């Protein structure tokens, strides 16, 4: 491949990268080979088949390809005329619903009045509502949230493991006997292995949940860190966003920044019924929520018809092993599930628990581990 062609290939890859498709060097290599095999007229398919890794990537790739075709001025790959894809603008996380002005003084060091947190203060802090924390308390709570180990209870696997007090294992016993050339050997015993049950977290990031979204996403990050392979996290707002991969980063700040960048509808409106329905149809029904523990973090505030929400909850209940609804208002005195949406889903839940404070989330961890 000549130098000119190589430059053109790299320029095109630059467009695709800036559209938000994570393209590694090995993919570029495959792209060049595919282009070589197909000819330059097949730029679209050569690129789409080799540079994309998921359906979301395909959407971004299509946008990049159109932009590349349309913008001859920008073909050098350094022009700023490439439209930014919808999902990539970075958003500043507004911690616990405080305005950014309040957030700024977090950088000036801990608040003098709350510098020394003693054990009793610690206990108070655990029960404090996330929406009413000072910036120093917030840092403390964040550290403590990072220490939680949320995981669903295990489930029995299809396969067995040796266990001296279990039931007789026919296959291994027979093999042991054969190995002894037919002499009856010791009875081998086994029991079912345990496997992590899938945990699916749905976090409402609409405006009414803004004071809690940061803490809940940190909780979700702790869950992903605990069991990366069997935890899935989605955010609900005006649309559904899968943030499991963004939350895989080890550092909570990096993970939350990545998740914030992926969520297009942060602190926006809410169409809970419709979005939950979309989750059930697109993910839960094809298999993601089957036999899983599903936790929905939402106040159940629904502007639309609660019937749609109830229908989604019914379907979710039938697919999942267990559906837990976490409402930040549950912990308040005098709480009654009267919010239109919450009243509609209540009959279809396994549990409705509080999620407004560190203590409530710690309790949630225990609830998850305890099983149905």
């Amino acid at each position, binding site marked *: 491949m000549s130098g000119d062609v190589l430059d053109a290939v790299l320029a095109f890859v630059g467009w695709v990268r800036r559209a938000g498709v994570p393209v590694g060097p090995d993919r570029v290599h495959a792209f060049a080979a595919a282009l070589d095999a197909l000819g330059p007229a097949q730029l679209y*398919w050569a690129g789409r088949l080799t540079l*994309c890794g998921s359906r979301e990537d395909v959407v971004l790739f299509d946008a990049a390809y159109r932009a590349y075709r349309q913008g001859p001025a920008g073909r050098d790959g350094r022009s700023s005329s490439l439209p930014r894809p919808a999902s990539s603008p970075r958003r500043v996380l507004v911690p616990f619903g405080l305005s950014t002005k309040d957030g700024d003084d977090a950088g000036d060091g801990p608040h003098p009045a709350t510098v020394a947190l003693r054990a009793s203060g610690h206990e108070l802090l655990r029960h404090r509502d996330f929406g009413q924390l000072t910036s120093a308390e917030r840092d403390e709570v964040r550290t403590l949230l990072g220490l939680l180990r949320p995981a669903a209870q295990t489930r029995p696997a299809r396969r067995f493991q040796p266990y001296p007090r279990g039931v007789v294992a026919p296959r291994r016993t027979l093999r042991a006997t054969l190995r002894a050339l037919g002499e009856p050997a010791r009875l081998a015993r086994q029991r079912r292995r345990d496997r992590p049950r899938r945990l699916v977290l749905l976090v409402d990031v609409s405006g009414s949940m803004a004071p809690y979204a940061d803490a809940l996403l940190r909780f979700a990050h702790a869950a992903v860190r605990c069991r990366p392979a069997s935890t899935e996290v989605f955010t609900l707002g005006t649309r559904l966003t899968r943030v499991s991969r963004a939350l895989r980063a080890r550092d909570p700040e990096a993970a939350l920044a990545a998740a914030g960048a992926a969520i297009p509808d942060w602190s926006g409106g809410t169409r809970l019924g419709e979005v939950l329905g979309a989750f059930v149809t697109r993910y839960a029904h094809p298999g993601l929520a089957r036999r899983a523990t599903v936790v929905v973090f939402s106040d159940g505030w629904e502007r639309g018809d609660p019937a749609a929400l109830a229908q989604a909850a019914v379907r979710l209940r039938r697919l999942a092993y267990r559906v837990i609804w976490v409402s930040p208002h549950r912990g308040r005195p005098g709480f009654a599930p009267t919010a239109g949406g919450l009243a509609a889903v209540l009959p279809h839940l396994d549990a409705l628990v509080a999620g407004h404070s560190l203590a409530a989330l710690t309790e949630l961890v225990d609830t998850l581990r305890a099983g149905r």
Partner: protein
Amino acid sequence: MPDSPQQLTDALAKAGYLADEGLATAGFLARRLGRPVFLEGEAGVGKTAFAQALADALDLELIRLQCYEGLDAAQALYDWDFARQILHLRAMEAAGAGTADPVALEAGLYDRRFLVARPLLRALESAPCVLLIDEVDRADDEFEAYLLELLADWAVTVPELGRVAATTPPTVVVTSNRTREVHDALKRRCLYHWVDHPDPQREVAILRLRLPQLAESLATQVAAATARLRDLDLVKPPGVAEAIDWAQALHALGATSLTPPLAGASLGAVLKVREDLARVREKLPALLEA
């Protein structure tokens, strides 16, 4: 071996599979670059059928590995045939070969003929062939790591026997229903293609190809109705497989055109969820007229 995606499209059509440009290009590149194709898409859009058609079109053997939870090396790669090994020993004993060299006897037990080849090993040994790794999202994460090794080297090492390598890499088709995100490391080695529902014209062509006895007008109606069903936001939108089932059911009922009573009677062939059936039944006449 086809020289262009177009040639492969024609060969696939002869094998009874109408592939669109992207899928044919993916199949062509898989052969040319020796990379696996990773197919994702809704259930019933023809991911598995593609592998079968590819094998027919290239005139190669199809070896299928159906993934499931708990799948391990003994079921995917190889296993020693213990019973035959014992039988061999007994036979040697009966033949009075007790005085033979025990080291040689033991080495003889780990012979290729006592090895049961499972799909992956079989694919390596009988390459060139088409290897279908179906529904890889159902297998465990650990199994993916296993596949990585195989797909990188096209070889496996059996400790007692040595290395088994493929002379030419098999053409590999990996499918996923997306119940779980497959690891990037695996996807990176593959050509990725998202298989969409076909457009109505292509669907008519598929129906006519699969069911030659079907009247063209009925095929057109079934394809149009199926496309409209897919727009209805159903729990399980019908795939191509369901459309074929439906057309077949209608043909068996002796239909020449899709009328509301006939559609109502055969709706169970295309929709398999109770809520979907209830929703579609009430607006069936409007759906067929539109």
